[in-house]
């Protein structure tokens, strides 16, 4: 079945460590890619998105993601995490042939805990 896979379900880091969260998708054709974040007790918020052009996308709060078409991947990175980055992170794909309905398919999420 076509899907979105996030490799790590739980990640624990110390402050100032570098972060990379993996995301792979199995849809062929042109896809639109997103990362969302859910801070404890808050609603999901958009971190960044990729549609076309430069495969290295910069988002809010120092996050970036790289689209590698040949690997069907869209990994999220941050050079130096902070305690306030503790949250759950979701990768999402707008599959091709969605009929223009803007449907998003989400991965299972990665819980990140950053220790001071």
């Amino acid at each position, binding site marked *: 079945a076509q899907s979105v896979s996030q490799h790590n379900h739980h990640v624990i880091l110390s402050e100032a460590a570098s972060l990379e969260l993996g995301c792979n998708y199995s849809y062929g054709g042109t896809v639109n890619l997103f990362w*969302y974040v859910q801070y404890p007790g808050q*609603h999901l918020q958009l971190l960044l998105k990729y549609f076309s052009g430069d495969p290295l996308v910069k988002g809010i709060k120092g996050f970036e993601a790289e689209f590698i078409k040949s690997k069907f991947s869209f990994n999220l990175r941050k050079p130096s995490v902070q305690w306030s980055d503790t949250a759950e992170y*979701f990768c*999402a794909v707008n599959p091709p042939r969605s009929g223009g309905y803007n*449907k998003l*398919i*989400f991965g*299972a999420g990665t819980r990140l805990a950053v220790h001071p």
Partner: protein
Amino acid sequence: DVKVTQSSRYLVKRTGEKVFLECVQDMDHENMFWYRQDPGLGLRLIYFSYDVKMKEKGDIPEGYSVSREKKERFSLILESASTNQTSMYLCASSSGTGVIYGYTFGSGTRLTVV
């Protein structure tokens, strides 16, 4: 800012009850969505609507129905609640002109079926 408001933050219902979850958005968005969020499973699409009175099944529609009588309101209905429907339910909306703006999510309704 676009706001998506879900009427209840927490709900406890009994098995077999008919349950209504309400969602209202205030930015004239064409598309509205209902997801359920479960640990280890992420968000799974239940139903979505791209216009008033229009609806499409998502990936897990069984046991659910929806209603969209007005553009701003999208209701999720559990016809006969069961314990396996205990979950966090998230409503989202987006502009019909493109997914480039992503979704705006509500705060969620945590439903417990006992």
